[in-house]
């Protein structure tokens, strides 16, 4: 009896409120574009704000009013963009290429020289503060994995040669590693851009040769070799213009220091398709991955 009373009264209260709300919903119904609701349904519903609008429904109304493009949702990617453009009745947005991070340095422990033994906080920022870091090349990767720690998707790990390796399947292109790297040698590149100059050294050729086996010496051979004029030489460093490069691999073959590299998407590790020889041997007294470097 006691329970019945409690249940009935609460149910009654709920019913009264429910009916009142139902009536109110009729009375205060707002004409809204049905497309807004449809698009909200298609969007991922993560409400992450990555698009810059307050939640997915915010973006949906912005798309309907035309103030946001159909492919504004960074989380949904192409699939969502296509479905949204279908609802909006417009041509699907051209596929935007996925971007992944790439470490623009090939100077692993066996290829780049170190100047002194660094014994201290195992952090690239800290190591870089000690007279430019233990690596003889002041542009190169310090190898303490600050970027690896920064990656929220577990897409990075330290390779055996003390350089970070990026798992392109896991990389979302969020750019957290780029922010974290004190050297600024990580860059976002389109996944299809396989040919990369893995060097960021602006030093003159002779200096580069002294400190690194695979550094760009600015000789300009690649610029002359490239049939698509996709390579430019800027301040002693070759740069590939991604729009023009068709990954023909001619520069990779011709580069005397092998700093231009063709990476394969499949095994995620750097594959040098050029000749062999350069970059082998001549180890510089290092003690395994991440270990302290000992001056030669």
């Amino acid at each position, binding site marked *: 009896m006691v329970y019945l009373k409690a249940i009935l009264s*609460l149910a009654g209260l709920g019913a009264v*409120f429910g009916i009142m709300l139902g009536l109110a919903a009729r009375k*205060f119904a707002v004409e809204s574009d049905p497309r807004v609701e449809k698009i909200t349904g298609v969007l991922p519903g993560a409400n992450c704000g990555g698009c810059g609008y307050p939640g997915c429904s915010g973006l949906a109304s912005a798309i309907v009013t035309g103030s946001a493009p159909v492919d504004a949702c960074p989380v949904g990617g192409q699939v969502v963009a296509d479905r949204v453009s279908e609802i909006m009745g417009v041509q699907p947005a051209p596929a935007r290429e996925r971007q992944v991070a790439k470490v623009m340095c090939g100077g692993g422990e066996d290829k780049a020289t170190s100047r002194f033994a660094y014994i201290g906080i195992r952090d690239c920022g800290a190591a870089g503060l000690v007279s430019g870091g233990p690596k003889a090349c002041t542009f190169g990767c310090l190898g303490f994995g600050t970027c690896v720690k920064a990656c929220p998707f577990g897409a990075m790990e330290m390779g055996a040669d003390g350089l970070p390796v990026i798992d392109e399947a896991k990389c979302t292109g969020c750019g957290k590693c780029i922010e974290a790297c004190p050297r600024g040698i990580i860059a976002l590149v389109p996944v299809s851009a396989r040919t990369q100059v893995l060097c960021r050294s602006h030093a003159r050729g002779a200096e580069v040769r002294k400190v690194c086996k695979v550094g760009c010496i600015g000789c300009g051979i690649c610029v002359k070799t490239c049939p698509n004029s996709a390579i430019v030489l800027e301040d002693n460093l070759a740069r590939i213009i991604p729009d023009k490069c068709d990954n023909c691999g001619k520069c990779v073959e011709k580069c005397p220091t092998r700093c231009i590299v063709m990476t394969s998407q499949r095994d995620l590790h750097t594959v040098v398709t050029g000749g062999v020889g350069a970059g082998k041997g001549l180890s510089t007294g290092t003690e395994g991955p991440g270990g302290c470097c000992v001056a030669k």
Partner: protein
Amino acid sequence: MRDLLVIFFAGVLLNNFILSRFLGICPFIGVSKRIETATGMGMAVIFVMAVASVITWAVQYYILVPLHLGYLQTIAFILVIAALVQLVEMVILKVSPTLYQALGIYLPLITTNCAVLGVAIINIRENYDIIQTAVNGIAGAAGFTLAIVLFAGIRERLDFAPIPEALKGFPLALITAGLMSIAFLGFTGFKLAALFGL
């Protein structure tokens, strides 16, 4: 009239929901980055708290007490508040879509604002009559608004201050809130009755 004034000022200053009773902290921290959103939130809370106070009072004395269902108080009050917030949302969307846009997610958040439930329960506990209840509801919400707008003002200025990296954002916000709370403790000494009894 006198005790209504006392209830009002006690609600705003002495028993400030956020800074003395520590209720409704989440919107206080979450919606206080800019003065405009803080004000909007405050206005919505004032409306919801005032109406919720009156309706829960009616529910308590016309339904729960006669049926001896006092133990259902919390759940019944939550029902009232949730329904009310829904209604407010609909009305605002109809009447002023711009305000609705500005309030955004904060509007439904009022449902889970413990200060609203708190004021309803305090009204009953203090044995207020319906007028006193309404005044207490408005006062509680006014105190909430005062605290959140002041806080937003401070935070807006803090954005330009040189702050150690480790303290930026929420840590400093929490410290600021603590200091404000200490400042509001100063009102405790006020003898409001004497003040208005002159």
